[in-house]
């Protein structure tokens, strides 16, 4: 405890000493240039003459798309360049240290002591064979900052400040015994334990689910405020940065596009690229005009559902006594997709979204339930399906990089479904391929190229074109925009909406990102632990009352405005109502352990039933509409987002 105070005192002492030197910021980067070596040995400049300063106690955000050089710049503050790169010029000063003049040994002594780094993937940053405490205090012991007992005391202090559960004991656990969000916070403790002058956070919440992200952000924010830490926050997500940063630097292709205070960049962006980023971050506003509700005048036959999934159960493991799989990934899924409409499937990682798409595509055989396409039942496995059925349901995968065969040219990739399903060849095939490329807005010149020669967005367009080549009725989109930069993702979403209007194709749109689902879908299905907790039309979904989990999800999405994090309810803010022992039946509500509206004696004993809601759609919950409405705090209204 004493050590901790000393540490705090040291920080403020240093701040006091720097009081006269308010002119002299803690970090000063001038004319930084970083070069990378290409395959042919030539040099390419990936960071071009970047200048910035960070004042003591300030949080500076570096924001940009992939390839903008934001991580490279952050790493150069450690005097480090990734393999194949090297720092070609410029001055980097942190405190009294001139980073660019230091040798490897001095840099080693500085890293993890005076400058600390928090990486994106905590899971990859921890040694699975050692306890968390060992790893958290390792840098303090290695740099001889303090003895073991005081380091451990300080670590516990940090665990407490980071709102980790059971701070005294959590250090005894191993990395796999805590959740991803907790591990990310433990990594923050690891970085802060030596009392560094500067902390670099490199996309620390990008790999986390949105409900976890909010907890981690809140913990980071508190600890940064409490310790007065100076930080550089690297992110691609403007909404997250809005919560954390005092100042923002917008980067593109290794050059600074705009520097300004957070509110200035968010509300009055000067640079055209920043404006573009801001527009792309709220896709709903742009795609909404392209969205069309099915005309009600269609004949009854045509309105028969294109896809009907009923009672679907899928999973793995030894079957239980009812013949259901021991571990259920999907449990009792019922949904219909109308012709020409889009159904969004939303849920966190592990909720069974991808399994659902694969079950519809026939790649995972469900244990129970049926999937009907236009009234005819589809075989649960690939073997029993006809080529016509294959043609009508196409799947587009998340990773455009791995979904295209790297040894086939784009032309060959697009030709295959044309000849396979439609028997096209020669000129007819060439014409159709050109049409397809035109449809997804790619130049005809890409035909002879290999996938590796295209950008991520272009690859995703090819992916889409391959699905369209079959002339399908239903396209299963599995996180198609998740791996893409915001601007590119927004363009793909627009393309999807346009194609739907032109070709009357239906989508099952799977995503973890509620704003993309909101932008494109007519109906939204919320999955939690394989259970369908809500299935409602979009308008109903976005207005109270919500299913408790939908509410948590919606309120966890960061809004692009400062101070949102402080206003919002979100996860971990409320004390959960106490409940008794939970019935071990697998049908008990899966959200129960996290539910703020659970009822003791009901939720933990009786499995919830699906019931219709007044404003449309159905949810899986014991609470009545009125109950839910009363207890749910309204969402923080966000400007620029149309529901």
């Amino acid at each position, binding site marked *: 405890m004493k050590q901790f105070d000393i540490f705090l005192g040291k920080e403020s002492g240093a701040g006091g000493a720097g009081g006269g030197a308010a002119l002299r910021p803690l970090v000063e980067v001038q004319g930084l240039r970083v070069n990378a070596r290409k395959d042919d040995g030539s040099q390419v400049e990936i960071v071009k003459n970047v200048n910035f300063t960070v004042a003591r106690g300030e949080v500076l955000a570096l924001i940009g798309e992939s390839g903008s050089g934001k991580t490279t710049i952050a790493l150069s503050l450690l005097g480090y360049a990734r393999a194949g790169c090297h*720092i*070609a010029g410029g001055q980097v000063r942190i405190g009294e240290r001139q980073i660019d003049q230091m040798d490897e040994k001095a840099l080693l002594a500085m890293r993890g002591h005076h400058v600390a780094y928090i990486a994106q993937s905590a899971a990859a940053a921890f040694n699975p064979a050692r306890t968390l405490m060992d790893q958290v205090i390792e840098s303090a012991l290695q740099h001889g900052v303090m003895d073991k007992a005081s380091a451990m005391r300080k670590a516990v202090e940090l665990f407490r400040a980071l709102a980790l559960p059971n701070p005294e004991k959590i250090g005894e656990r191993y990395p796999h015994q805590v959740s991803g969000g907790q591990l990310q916070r433990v990594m923050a403790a690891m970085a802060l334990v030596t009392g560094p002058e500067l902390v670099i956070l490199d996309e620390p919440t990008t790999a986390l689910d949105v409900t976890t992200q909010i907890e981690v952000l809140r913990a980071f924010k508190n600890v940064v405020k409490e310790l007065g830490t100076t930080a550089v926050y690297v992110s691609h997500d403007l909404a997250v940065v809005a919560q954390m940063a005092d100042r923002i630097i917008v980067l593109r292709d290794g050059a600074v596009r705009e520097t300004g205070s957070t509110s200035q960049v968010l509300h009055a962006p000067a640079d055209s690229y920043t404006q573009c980023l801001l527009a792309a971050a709220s896709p709903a506003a742009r795609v909404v005009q392209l969205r069309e509700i099915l005309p009600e005048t269609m004949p009854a036959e045509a309105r028969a559902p294109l896809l009907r999934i009923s009672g679907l159960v899928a999973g793995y493991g030894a079957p239980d006594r009812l013949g259901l799989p021991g571990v259920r990934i999907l449990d009792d899924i019922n949904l219909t997709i109308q012709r020409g409409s889009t159904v969004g499937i939303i849920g966190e990682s592990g909720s069974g979204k991808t399994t659902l798409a694969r079950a519809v595509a026939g790649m995972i055989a469900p244990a129970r339930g049926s999937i009907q396409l236009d009234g005819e039942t589809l075989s649960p496995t690939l073997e029993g399906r006809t080529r016509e059925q294959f043609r009508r349901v196409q799947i587009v995968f998340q990773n455009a990089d791995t979904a295209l065969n790297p040894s086939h040219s784009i032309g060959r990739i697009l030709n295959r479904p044309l000849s396979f399903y439609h028997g096209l060849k020669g000129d007819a095939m060439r014409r159709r391929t050109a049409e397809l490329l035109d449809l997804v807005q790619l130049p005809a010149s890409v035909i002879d190229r290999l996938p590796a020669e295209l950008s991520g967005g272009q690859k995703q367009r090819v992916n889409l074109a*391959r699905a369209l080549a079959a002339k399908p009725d239903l396209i299963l989109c599995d996180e198609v925009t998740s791996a893409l930069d915001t601007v590119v993702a927004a363009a793909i979403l627009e393309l999807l909406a346009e194609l739907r209007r032109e070709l009357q194709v239906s989508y099952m749109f799977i995503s973890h990102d509620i704003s993309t689902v909101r932008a494109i879908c007519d109906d939204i299905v919320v999955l939690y632990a394989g259970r369908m907790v809500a299935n409602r039309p979009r308008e109903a979904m976005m207005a109270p009352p919500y299913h408790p989990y939908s509410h948590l999800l919606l309120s966890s999405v960061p809004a692009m405005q400062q101070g949102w994090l402080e206003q919002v309810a979100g996860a971990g803010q409320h004390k959960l109502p106490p409940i008794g022992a939970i019935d071990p039946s697998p049908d008990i509500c899966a959200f129960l352990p996290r539910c703020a509206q659970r009822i003791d004696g009901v939720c933990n004993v009786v499995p919830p039933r699906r019931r219709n809601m007044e404003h449309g759609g159905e949810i899986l919950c014991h609470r009545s509409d009125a109950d839910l409405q009363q207890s749910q705090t309204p969402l923080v209204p966000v400007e620029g987002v149309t529901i």
Partner: protein
Amino acid sequence: MKALHDSTGSPAGTPASPASAPARRVRRHSTMAWIGMVIVGFWILMAILGPSISPYDATAIVDTDVFSGMSHKFLLGSDYLGRDMLSRILFGTRATIGLALAATVLASATGTAIALFAAFSGGWRDAVISRALDALISIPSKMFALMMVATFGSSMLLLVLTAAITYMPGAYRIARSLAVNVQAMEYVQAARARGEGVWYIMTVEMLPNMIRPVLADFGLRFVYVVLLLSGLSFLSLGVQPPDADWGSLVRENISGLGEGALAVIMPALAIASLTIGVNLLIDNLRSKRAAKE
């Protein structure tokens, strides 16, 4: 991992030094590959042309001077019967490389085919095939070869089969581990969801993406087969007279070893140069690929 001071220390020198370092490395790699290619190319040429350009008939006893050294008459000395060693080695090249090549092609092709099938179908089929081939791999190769030769007698066909069976499980292992990775790729999943047949997926979607490591493994396996067959010949269980490969040449001249006769050293050197050449070639193909990735 390059420290900052490496480059900023001498700003003027920076453009030159990093640019020249990779260039030098690239050239060194290709030199080694070239040496390997020249050696391998030479021996393949000799396998084709050898008997027609050899100075003497390989079986003709030219002189009574046995185990002679280098001379104008015998460029590489003479053997224990006074036959020309150069002609003998050229004659043996065809058996050595031909048999090894046939056996390796057989081993790699069947191994890869079975691996593709096992990885693609997965489940119990994969398990059964893998365990069966693991059992095969556990039999020592020389012992297995001895058993085969002892049971069926030595013939060219049997030697090829024996070497192929011995080295097929290894090829299977490599190819399967590659195929399992490729199989999990989304483009293979996409092909399955499209309703493509097993054959199409295996040959068109999967094989092109695993062929390079399989080819590198082919080279390595070829070296093993050469060594196995030469070893068998050295034990008089391989190629039988009047045919000869390099292993049997070493064997028949072994009595000259005490005198340091060229007749026993030269075929051994031939074996060494071939294996080293192949290794140089595939090593550098490999590291080029690694550098690319």
